[in-house]
């Protein structure tokens, strides 16, 4: 009796499921395509906001002149939008932060994948993930309140919020990303390569740099590029720790990044005025840089997969 009931309920359930199938299919289909739609919408919106000014932007001045004066003090003067110093700021923070993050991240990945065992390995992996979960505002806070006085004291410089500080914070944010992707790609190297190298009498270190690095090269490159993407796009920590002066600053000088410029100046603009539109132009440049980085790293990762299959 009871058996009959459950089986009829089951039959009903499966019939309902059959009915629902096209609906479920539709939902999944739409979800899949929506991501494309969203990306397209983002491009459309950003371009739309900047559109009125795009034709009149002095691109020479924008890329090569460091004169970002959207609201000149002298009202008779025209505002100037030379963003070279700001673009330099983003570029400099990216380079310096990667110089810090890549060796450290790679070293940590090698340690986790090749040397740590058992509990140590598990704990380290969890800690790295935890590091990735720290919000960027916290890093900005650390840069501003903790790192800044330390930098002033250690290096004897006047200003603690500078290119170095911002790069350090961005490096800390990029390291977990670099570690986890590098570690994945090192772990994907077949163990037989390690045994082959060791059995030929290579030391562990030789095995790592002569066999593992070349074998995991594509994954390591992808990790680096995603790290670069992180550095280019980071806003909050960079805003708080970089000092916010658009100039071709050296390591201990204040700099200003593209992201931070948009975030900090948006409140000073009126919706739709020229300054507002120019901030969107910066946004477009940033977006294009990020897309290029993403596409490149995607191609590189695809290269990895092709070789493994």
């Amino acid at each position, binding site marked *: 009796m009871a058996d009959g009931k459950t089986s009829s309920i089951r039959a009903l359930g499966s019939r309902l499921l059959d009915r629902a199938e096209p609906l479920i299919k539709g939902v999944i289909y739409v979800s899949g395509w929506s991501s494309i739609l969203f990306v397209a919408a983002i491009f459309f919106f950003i371009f739309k906001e900047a559109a009125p000014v795009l034709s009149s932007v002095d691109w020479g001045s924008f890329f090569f002149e460091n004169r970002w004066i959207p609201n000149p003090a002298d009202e008779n003067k025209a505002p100037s939008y030379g963003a070279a110093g700001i673009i330099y700021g983003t570029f400099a923070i990216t380079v310096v932060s990667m110089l810090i993050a890549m060796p450290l991240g790679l070293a940590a990945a090698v340690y986790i994948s090749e040397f740590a065992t058992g509990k140590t390995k598990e704990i380290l992996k969890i800690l790295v993930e935890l590091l990735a979960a720290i919000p960027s505002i916290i890093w900005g806070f650390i840069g501003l309140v903790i790192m800044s006085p330390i930098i002033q004291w250690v290096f004897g410089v006047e200003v603690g919020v500078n290119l170095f500080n911002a790069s350090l914070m961005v490096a800390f944010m990029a390291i977990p990303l670099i570690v986890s992707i590098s570690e994945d790609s090192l772990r994907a190297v077949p163990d037989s390569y390690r*045994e*082959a*190298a*060791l*059995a*030929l*009498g*290579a030391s562990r270190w030789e095995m790592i740099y002569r*066999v593992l690095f070349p074998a995991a090269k594509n994954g390591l490159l992808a990790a680096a590029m995603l790290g670069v993407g992180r550095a280019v796009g980071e806003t909050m920590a960079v805003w708080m720790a970089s000092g916010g002066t658009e100039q071709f600053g050296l390591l201990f000088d204040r700099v200003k990044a593209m992201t931070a410029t948009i975030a900090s100046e948006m409140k000073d603009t009126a919706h739709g005025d020229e300054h507002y539109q120019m901030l969107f132009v910066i946004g477009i440049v940033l977006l294009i840089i990020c897309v290029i980085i993403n596409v490149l790293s995607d191609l590189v990762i695809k290269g990895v997969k092709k070789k493994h299959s």
Partner: protein
Amino acid sequence: MDSSTTSQANPAGASAPEGAGQMSIRTRDVDLFYGDFQALFGVSVDIKPNIITSLIGPSGCGKTTLLRSFNRINERYGNVTTRGTIEILGKNIYDADVSLPELRKSVGMVFQRPNPLPISIYENIIFGLRSHTPKPELGRRGDLDDIVESALREVQLWEVTKNRLKDRATTLTLEQQQKLCIARLLPLKPQVILMDEPCSALDADGIERVEELISELRERFTIVMVTHNMGQAKRASDECIYMYLGKIIEHAPTAELFLNPREEQTAMYIEGRYG
């Protein structure tokens, strides 16, 4: 090295103690543990130079473990404890002053699946040399070219690879890859070559040709080979060691072991009644 000792000349089997100097590998009371699990029990065996010795026995009997303790590659896993002594060419390789790179230079290894490194054919051959020779002494390009050529010639790979030395080694066929894995040991001039089922990934033709190659190499090296294939043990080896549950059951010249096994267990295994 003295190459007069052949299997035919020594019908007594290697279990009978002989002059220690003549033995290539000599183990005494080797116990080996993976954590708490004991994989080898009191293994004492003498392996002669310039012959091929096969390690046979059912899966899990410890033959691969024994093989991998001859170049200490099994220590990679960290939880391995070895007791007893393994002397290779008169030196206990478990002594504190033994350098693993040096040990592995004189004890080469060929693996079950061909595992050429993901670099060029050329670089695969001189990989070991680069590890063992300081850069300034590595010699000129021409010297290296000669080394690569002669190593590849010895494994009959030169004709097929001479025009593609810069290609990735992984583009070769499995048979060629396995030959390359043998060839890359040669520049290091090892004394012992360990082979862990060297033909198990190959097709029938590949097996035949690699066996021929191994058989030619015996004149210059001590070869210890793990195999699951009774036919191969019979064809290709001069002496056989039958292992079961981590112990050496029987060690005798191949013909004797197959025709006239001393132990009943050995007889059952080679007749295919288990294993």
